[in-house]
């Protein structure tokens, strides 16, 4: 198992390095704005550029980039968005909002999705199942920003239950902030609940119709016992990694919702850095690397967690 994990992690790091290098080269090929245009910050930025070796050949710049940014964690200084500020500091400042919103969402969506899925599987082909299936198709398909509009219009504007946008400030854990985050959590969560419901229902119905469950019943276990002890445990084998992957993936995946509800997270930072003129390349570089890493890590975690949950599935371990 350990060998397998090490192999996967090394492979992932290799892919990560290749992608980041590609991004680096592609970003370096873009035209940069002369430092003169930055006014009084000119000297500071000029000095930073000098320190980062912007006037050296591309290969040398790449070496500096690997040493300083990838290994040292110094990703340079913002040149157009937050002029003069450290990119990494700003990024870490934005991180908690994203994490908080997504954690709340997962905390609400995961149990609900599992429960609905289990309920639908137990009531298979009855009217409850049909209603849930139709709702699932609708909620899986409709884009999250459409929920955002609906939630904002009905809950925030018409009923005035929640504010339109997240409360400003940095006390993310206070109750008031939580209330102001409810619209965002709902809009983000609907799709996840529906996806999880569908997946759970599919997995559980497959297990429920298998023969070992019939055996368990004939041995005298009640229906609830077989469902909880045998069926659910087996159905969780593919479901748990999915939840894990979803959780990691969602950290980078709520660009639009964060934008709509004014959450000072990573998503708006990315959009702002790209749409600024000129685009803030240092932010773009850091966030590209971040999104790449998030995607890769979620993939690898899913694969490894399969092996942990069910020792029979240790993919590639016997190669």
């Amino acid at each position, binding site marked *: 198992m350990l060998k397998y994990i090490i192999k996967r992690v090394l492979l992932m790091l290799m892919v990560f390095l290749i992608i980041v290098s590609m*991004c680096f080269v592609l970003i370096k090929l873009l035209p940069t704005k002369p430092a003169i245009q930055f006014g009084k910050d000119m000297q500071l930025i000029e000095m930073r550029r000098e320190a980062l070796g912007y006037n050296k050949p591309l290969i040398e710049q790449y070496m500096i980039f690997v040493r300083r940014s990838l290994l040292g964690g110094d990703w340079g200084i913002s040149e157009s968005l937050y002029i003069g500020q450290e990119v990494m500091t700003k990024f870490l400042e934005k991180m908690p909002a994203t994490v908080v919103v997504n954690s709340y969402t997962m905390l609400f969506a995961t149990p609900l999705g599992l429960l609905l899925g289990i309920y639908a599987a137990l009531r298979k082909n009855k009217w409850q199942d049909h209603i849930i299936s139709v709702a699932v198709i609708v909620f899986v398909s409709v884009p999250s920003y459409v929920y955002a509009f609906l939630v904002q219009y009905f809950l925030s504007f018409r009923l005035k239950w929640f504010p339109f946008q997240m409360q400003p400030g940095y006390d993310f854990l206070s109750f008031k902030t939580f209330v102001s985050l409810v619209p965002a959590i709902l809009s983000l969560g609907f799709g996840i609940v529906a996806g999880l419901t569908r997946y759970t229902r599919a997995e559980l119905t497959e297990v429920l119709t298998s023969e070992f469950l019939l055996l368990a019943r004939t041995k005298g276990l009640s229906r609830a016992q077989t469902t909880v002890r045998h069926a659910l445990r087996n159905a969780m084998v593919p479901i748990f990694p999915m939840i894990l992957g979803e959780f990691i993936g969602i950290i980078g995946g709520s660009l639009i919702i964060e934008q709509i509800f004014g959450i000072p997270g990573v998503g708006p930072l990315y959009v702002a850095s*790209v749409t600024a003129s000129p685009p803030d390349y240092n932010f773009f570089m850091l966030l590209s690397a971040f999104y790449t890493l998030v*995607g890769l890590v979620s993939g690898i975690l899913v694969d490894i967690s399969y092996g942990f949950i069910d020792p029979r599935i240790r993919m590639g371990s016997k190669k």
Partner: protein
Amino acid sequence: MSEKNMKEIPASKFAFVDMSDRMHDRKLETKPVGYFKDVAMRFARNRGSVVAAGIIFLLVCFAVFVPIFAETTYSRALTDTMYLNYGKLPPKSKALAWLGLDGMAEYTVNTHDYYALRAIGEETGLDPVVEVYREAYQDPTASQNARFYDVKVDTYYRMGMLYLTMTPAEYEALQVWQDETGIQVIYPAVSDAKQTDPNVWYQADRKGAPTIKDGHLVPIYRTTTPTDTSYHSLRIPSDNDPEKPYAYAKVTGTASARSYVVRICKYNFFLYRYGFEPEFMFGTSARGQDILTRLASGARFSFLLALFVSSINLTIGALYGAVEGYYGGATDLLMERIADVLGGIPFIVVTTLFQLHLANKVGPIVALLFAFVLTGWLGMASRVRVQFYRFKGQEYILAARTLGASDGRLMFKHIFPNSMGTIITGSVLVIPGVIFSESSLTYLGIINLESSTMTSVGTMLANGRAYLSTDPYIIMFPALFISLLMISFNLFGNGLRDAFNPSLRGVE
């Protein structure tokens, strides 16, 4: 019962079926059911998917035909500066008025605004106040002197007046049209030089509170001398003093370049300029663009892009996956690593890089297309690869190889048709994904496709969001369109997948 004693049937009751020496196979009487026919039959049994297919067909028709047939002189005049004057008109359609698309809105207004609305009706005859639910009531939370009215307002009539600067030729042409049709567009100028609101034609104080004399508003139309020839045309009924006719325009500019500042009725001016009474089935956006034709052209763009991307991805993915799956081994390993790297790049980063690099050279659409193609084929390739792994070891392939079939023939003549179902389902499911990504990216503003002639659903949503609470219909139709599209494509795709899946045959 006794007659049908099956155990003891007398020999005389038996007859020979066939007495000839040779036996022949009977020709099948029923028609053979081929693979695709079987798929179609099983698809048709899935009612939800059939309905979804119907909805998709309707949406495609909407995107194709609306820009052709619902084009008006208004929606075609794309760079018209008059557009801004017709912004935020709610949906109105004579045919669909029973659905609530009647251009009406309900408001609570204060006394000033109520009189202002009434004044528009009194001057032009197009009364914006359709119904008064509650008259002159006090609101306990507001000032004791204030009175409020709950009214139903025709928002198309509420547009009221506008100061428009015209050249002499335009002014003359408008007068000729007025004389021909008898519809009043130009209304008299007012004598209060400080009054900037074109809707005020009556005596009012600085705050806009009108002076009421005998229950009527007091007009402050500017008068002129009978010899003034700057206006000859239609006059409003109160203009009946030949010694002091109303002045209908403020003349500015020099003698060689004269221009007329006239007070025009927006509703009737629309009729003059575009040849039909203003009526927008889906309303107009904040910039005055007709949402119906705009949405249809955005939808058409989305569909075309999705079809294009889907077909390119299908080709690349099928070829790549076929080579991977067929040759296997080191080739597969190498190609899989390349796919891994490409698949590891987040889509949003790919799009941004392409936009930054190529948008200025080849335009944002082509750059977007490249972004979709760069990583989009990966899913198709992996699906085809799996199919090839499944089929390449089977006996019929071995038989074909023994007969001397080349690699290419084996791949595309023998294995490929077997993975057809996966490929078709895959390329159908790609379409909603492309439309969703495109609308998200344009919504975020990472890609800007907005121009006077083109738009995308995402941009329409982004533009409408600011008016969510005041004019929700601006965002409603694009949101409805994209939701309907996603739902029906997903249903349709699921139906196709089930129909193509041979393991489900006979299970349903």
